């Protein structure tokens, strides 16, 4: 302790009102544009992240409608093959890289620090940087698409179709470099989440008292850290092949075409669980709150999350069953792909047990969870089907697979996410969403989704391949395709209503109390929306159900300084307080660093020298970012 560090700068010396005032002056983001651009508050960045991801969802949905318009009748001339290929590529790329993964991480950026009882996310400036990188990557893809140079090689960008010989122009480079943007931002958030969960938990929140959503985001973050390097290697190699003729994927020069597929799917399959596991955490959270009891089998649920995360890395070959790999090796991947049904089934059964033993309250978030159960089980079972090699050789790359993964990703992840938005909206905005509208939204989306995607199973079995911009009138697919296109309008109407409800509720929804659902996790222990410092006094956790066990106020930990941003570092296992750590203040440098990186990355798809010259502004931005502030790093 330094001499300056007297008790009058610690939170112990103040009454509540004075403490709030002092913390607010230290933690608040200054008003105005400059403040907004420099903010490192995880709640401001989290809200920004979530909103951006939903904008991309809406844009990707519009592309889906365009595709359904084109496919509504055979040999339609509404969209030509060149534009259609861009549309389905940008739809898939956008939904995976700009919506699904970022929105899950964004929910964690907002919620995890609140749920573990800390004042900001770890590495807050990195968090700001990751958002700007994500936004830049998204703009790169969409501006390119609007200018008719959107990638047209599929979201999987198989070589050699995406290579220098068959993909002229810069379309494939834009795809590959957009990957770099989103990977950088995803990796940054993953590291922040891991450190926040491991080192910033409130005192007493030992590993067995971590909320299930936080566990799911912890496992997800490890998946991101382990899986994303594979795609970064792949996309960088693709750019090298295209820019400096490395021939890594060119069989004529000793390269290998299947190497791309291995690298892509070694990332691509865990990607599914990177999207799905956060949804599992959301389901567990909502189930617990709306059945008025803890989720049955906490330990089993955590083990299932970890088992899913481990198994996720052992199934990528089931995307390559028809590529010509040895059959015996493929059978191994059949077994591993089917095995992942065990942890998935375990979680389903635990939720069912929770519902059985609890007292269900049928509010909108819970309706989405029920919708999730109905549709995700379909997606899981069709997943078991495509895990079988012979089954897969018939349905691979057909509309059956399109149906399967939309059941998994929409039913398994978007339904829980929409439930989560209805659930956490009061915390995010301080206002409730409309329960009446919510029921309509759920009904339209649930019905529209199933009517749209279920018939695709049949189309696939009856021979309709994926990624076709049209089909011939003599094929027996016209009636089902028209039905699907009409059903898609119901689904679109549901989403339209959802967006209207969000905007209306954010402006004029009923004011929310700090804990409107009677939930038991820590984010509900502070006001809605939370103050810039999250908790005036850090809570001390005595059990898994942090709030429900406390008939009175939570016990609190004190001793943090109030004259600068400071948070508590605790031990990994028992969450015993170890040190007071200063937390970074607002800074414009992450934005400059992101702009410099963006310029370098985009420039580098035109010339390799961009990497050399671009490193200069990046270095300047980083020097500004890390300039010493004269504040001790931490004090035990």
């Amino acid at each position, binding site marked *: 302790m330094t001499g300056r560090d007297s008790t009058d700068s610690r939170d112990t010396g103040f009454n509540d009102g004075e403490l709030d005032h002092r913390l607010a002056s230290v933690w608040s983001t200054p008003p105005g544009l400059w403040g907004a651009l420099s903010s490192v508050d995880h709640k401001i960045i989290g809200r920004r992240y979530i909103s951006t991801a939903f904008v991309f969802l809406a844009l990707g949905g519009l592309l889906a409608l365009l595709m359904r318009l084109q496919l509504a009748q055979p*040999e339609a001339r509404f969209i030509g*093959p*060149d534009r259609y*290929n861009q549309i389905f590529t940008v739809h898939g790329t956008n939904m995976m890289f700009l919506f699904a993964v970022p929105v899950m991480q964004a929910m964690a950026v907002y919620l995890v620090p609140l749920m573990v009882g800390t004042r900001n996310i770890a590495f807050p400036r990195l968090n700001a940087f990751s958002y700007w990188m994500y936004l830049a990557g998204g703009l790169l893809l969409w501006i390119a698409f609007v200018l008719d140079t959107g990638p047209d090689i599929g979201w999987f960008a*198989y070589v*050699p*179709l995406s290579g220098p*010989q*068959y993909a002229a122009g810069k379309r494939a480079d834009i795809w590959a470099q957009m990957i770099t943007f989103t990977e950088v931002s995803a990796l940054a958030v993953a590291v922040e989440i891991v450190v926040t969960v491991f080192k910033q938990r409130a005192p007493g929140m030992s590993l067995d008292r971590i909320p299930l959503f936080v566990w799911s985001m912890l496992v997800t973050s490890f998946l991101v850290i382990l899986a994303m390097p594979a795609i970064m290697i792949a996309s960088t190699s693709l750019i090298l092949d295209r820019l400096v003729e490395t021939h890594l994927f060119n069989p004529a020069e000793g390269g290998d*075409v*299947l190497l791309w597929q291995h690298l892509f799917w070694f990332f691509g399959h865990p990607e599914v669980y990177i999207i799905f596991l956060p949804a599992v955490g959301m389901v567990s959270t909502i189930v617990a709150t709306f059945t008025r009891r803890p989720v049955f*089998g906490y330990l089993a649920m955590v083990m299932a999350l970890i088992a899913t995360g481990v198994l996720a890395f052992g199934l990528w070959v089931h995307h390559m069953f*028809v590529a*010509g790999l040895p059959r015996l090796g*493929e*059978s191994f991947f*059949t*077994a591993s792909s*089917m095995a992942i*049904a*065990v942890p998935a*089934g*375990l979680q*389903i*059964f*635990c939720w*069912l047990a929770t*519902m*059985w*033993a609890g007292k*269900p309250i049928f509010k909108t978030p819970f309706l989405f969870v029920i919708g999730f*159960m*109905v549709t995700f*089980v*379909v997606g899981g*079972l*069709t997943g*078991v*089907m495509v*895990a*079988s*090699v*012979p*089954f897969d*050789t*018939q349905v*691979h*790359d057909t509309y059956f697979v399109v149906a399967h993964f939309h059941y998994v990703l929409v039913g398994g992840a978007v339904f829980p996410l929409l439930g989560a938005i209805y659930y956490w909206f009061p915390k995010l905005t301080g206002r409730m969403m409309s329960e009446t509208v919510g029921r309509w939204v759920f009904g339209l989306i649930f019905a529209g989704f199933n009517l749209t995607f279920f018939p695709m199973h049949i189309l696939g*079995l*009856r*021979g309709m*391949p994926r990624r*076709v*911009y*049209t089909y*011939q*009138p*003599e*094929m*027996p697919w016209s009636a089902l395709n028209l039905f699907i296109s009409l059903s898609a309008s119901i689904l679109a109407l549901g989403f339209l209503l959802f967006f209207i409800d969000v905007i209306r509720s954010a402006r004029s929804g009923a004011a929310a109390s700090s804990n409107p659902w009677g939930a038991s996790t820590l984010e509900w222990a502070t006001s809605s929306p939370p103050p810039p410092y999250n908790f005036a006094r850090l809570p001390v956790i005595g059990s898994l159900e942090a709030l429900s066990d406390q008939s009175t106020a939570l016990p609190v930990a004190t001793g943090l300084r109030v004259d600068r941003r400071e948070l508590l570092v605790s031990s990994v296992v028992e969450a015993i307080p170890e040190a007071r750590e200063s937390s970074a203040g607002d800074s414009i440098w992450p934005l400059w660093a992101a702009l410099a990186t963006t310029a370098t990355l985009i420039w580098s798809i035109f010339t390799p020298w961009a990497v050399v010259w671009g490193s200069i502004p990046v270095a300047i931005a980083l020097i500004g970012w890390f300039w010493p502030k004269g504040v001790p790093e931490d004090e035990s």
Partner: protein
Amino acid sequence: MRVASALLISAVASGCSGNQSALDPHGAPAIHMEHLIIGIVAICTVIWVVVMVMLGVALLRGPRAAADTAKSEAWLAMTVVAAVAATVIIIAGLTIASFYTTRDIGVPKSDALTITVRGQQWWWQVFYAGADATPGFQTANEIHIPIGTDVHLRLESADVIHSFWVPSLAGKQDLVPGRSNSMLLRAEKPGVYRGQCAEFCGLQHSHMAIMVVAEAPADYDRWAASQRGDATMPADPDAAAGRGAFLAKPCAACHTIRGTAANGTTGPDLTHIGSRLTIAAGLAETTRGSLAAWIADPQTLKPGNNMPMVPLTSAELQNISAYMESLK
């Protein structure tokens, strides 16, 4: 252009689809797979119904008894463990069933009839190997096979990845540049089985169909014998004029017609194009009208394909179409 489209639509309206469905199998591999598909779908449907009943009961059952939570928790734990055990048993069974079906659809013996299929953007080049006395021959977008016999397909690609898929006969297998993949094709009864490329391969991935014509061994032999022969000089005067026009125009730079000076290798071999069911990889039935529509404006019918529009007078167009049709 409008005329060309109208011609094409009238050409295809008569229909030349053939079977293209995993649920309408006519070859041993596809039949094995259909059994597996129906079996797995049936089991999974039962599982889904059971889970949904459990969900419904869990949500809607009557008022909960407050008493004796410890006992009910233990009972719930037993149920969850039993359900997980059942999951393990079912997926183990499905894995084994899948493994045995995989064995049944394996690669055929090496003495089987071997056909090499080379994927191209956006058509199928087909090679029938010759034997000692008989020369081999080349065709496009159509494979003939004798029924009741295992046929070995060797799958290669000239450019990007394609995937050979004729669902009524067998599952799919990719054509990967730099590799040679193998698959078993077999038809149990005569018929035309349609397939199309299943791996996204660029602009005209949607129009890359292939017809497998399965016929009695005697019919197959007759067909193979006629395909081996060179193109004959057409008797019809229009067609004969068309032959001259074909050789004089750029057509011959990309296409081969054996027995003539045309020996281009960029596009499909046209030696017996008139005998094929369809043109332009399944785009339209082979008729004089559809041939004329295609030759007049290939870029409107199949935008982005590699055949350019060659300027022709209407007489030249008529004659070349007549010539193509005559190449039986």
